[in-house]
């Protein structure tokens, strides 16, 4: 059930390469293409194109290989507090746009800055898991923590990778992420902005997980990655004497 088995064809495109689409083709990630005329599109970024053929329907998936994180409403991100104002925090979310989190949202009730000090709740340097509530390109990003599992992060370690490679860390139907969690017994929270939070039972497992994530990042464009990473983790575990061997 890994993603490699479903992919029929994969090619690398660079800006200026043209792609011909017909009526039977659907495209995921059309924002990375530029329409030249009715059926010809041009790639605007260095990207991989996965072509899946089912009966007489073609499905293209454009996966960019590099680029900054652009916020999207509903994304879960991991941010750090960089500034505190009277009734809000400025959060760095690893994107060209900085985000705001309002005090009333974090505290859950009306906040009066004359009575309370906002730094009591969150101060510069604190890390939090939040969801993007609003994003307008002309205004900015507004975060919310009003959802299950969101809020200040007090333990664990943070790994940062390129945001466009997050999709590979999760994998198709979370296959990669489930495999990682199963193999390393770590709790993994993936922020869409390229930051990953790990909570691991031991230092050695944490180290292996970080190595595996970095390997996913550098080999994101290869086929059959989940299997490769699984073998890699097992190998590392054997090397460190955590397990003796495992039957595949």
């Amino acid at each position: 059930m890994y993603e490699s088995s479903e992919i029929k064809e994969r090619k690398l495109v660079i800006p200026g390469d043209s792609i011909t689409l017909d009526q039977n083709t659907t495209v995921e990630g059309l924002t990375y293409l530029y329409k030249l005329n009715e059926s010809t599109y041009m790639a605007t970024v260095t990207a991989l194109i996965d072509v899946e053929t089912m009966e007489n329907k073609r499905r293209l998936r454009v996966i960019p290989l590099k680029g900054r994180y652009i916020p999207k409403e509903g994304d879960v991100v991991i941010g750090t507090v960089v500034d505190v104002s009277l009734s809000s925090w400025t959060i760095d979310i690893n994107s060209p746009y900085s985000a705001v989190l309002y005090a009333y949202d974090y505290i859950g009730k009306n906040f009066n800055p004359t009575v309370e000090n906002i730094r009591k709740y969150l101060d510069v340097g604190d890390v939090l898991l939040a969801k993007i509530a609003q994003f307008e390109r002309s205004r900015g990003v507004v975060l919310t923590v009003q959802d299950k599992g969101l809020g200040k992060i007090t333990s664990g370690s943070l790994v940062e990778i390129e945001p466009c490679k997050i999709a590979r860390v999760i994998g198709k139907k979370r296959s990669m992420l489930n495999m990682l969690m199963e193999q390393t017994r770590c709790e993994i929270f993936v922020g869409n902005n390229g930051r990953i939070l790990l909570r691991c039972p031991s230092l050695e497992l944490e180290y292996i997980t970080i190595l595996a994530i970095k390997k996913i990042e550098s080999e994101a464009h290869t086929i059959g990655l989940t299997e490769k990473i699984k073998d890699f983790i097992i190998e590392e575990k054997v090397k460190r004497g955590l397990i003796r061997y495992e039957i595949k």
Partner: protein
Amino acid sequence: MKLNKIKLIAEDGRRIDGRLPEELRPIKIDIGILKNADGSAIVEYGATKVLAAVYGPREVVPRHEELADRAIIRCRYRMLSFSTQGERKSPAPSRREIELSKVIREALEPAILSNQYPRTAIDIFVEVINADGGTRTAGITAAAVALADAGIPMLDLVVAVAVGKLNGVLVVDLNGLEDMNSEADMPIAIMPSLGKITMLQLNGVLTPEDFRKALLLAINSINKIYELQKEALRRKYLTVEE
């Protein structure tokens, strides 16, 4: 005239460095060489060596400069003080460098889809490490690959090359000596897949007929460099795949 006395084309039609008129200098393109930059490239046109680094899209630092509908593109072209022959170049930005920064920026702007990132800045730095003619053209070629390496959406790559006239012969990709003694020098930047010209300058005199020939010559050379650019971008991902 004094200029015409210098013999730049030999009897057998070869130029001072042994090239044929329509022959390019050996070109080398390497990408992703700087760790801190989002995208980077080093381009060599013979002895001319240019480093380009791209940062962004990132927050605009003097806040008032940001634009509500698109990203601002800032470009700085600079010649390092050891890049020239003979006298050391002053490190202070000269009038020429400021002008070339603008020329390079305007050559790249049509290719960049800046409206996808409003209220941000894209910074392009072009540093000439070794100058031997054609630094602006090498700079544009390098900056275009660095932009693609940074993952910035572009309509097409941009390639630039100079065409000149030496002793009445049209030649491509002039080196330092030819550049200084040419009858005409015309740097051209093109988006090859779209077939659109983004920069065209002309120093000296060309007849309309010569101009047409020169343009064709440039397009041919640009297509060759374009292939090298694409190969450099592909190479980065293919080496990991093995």
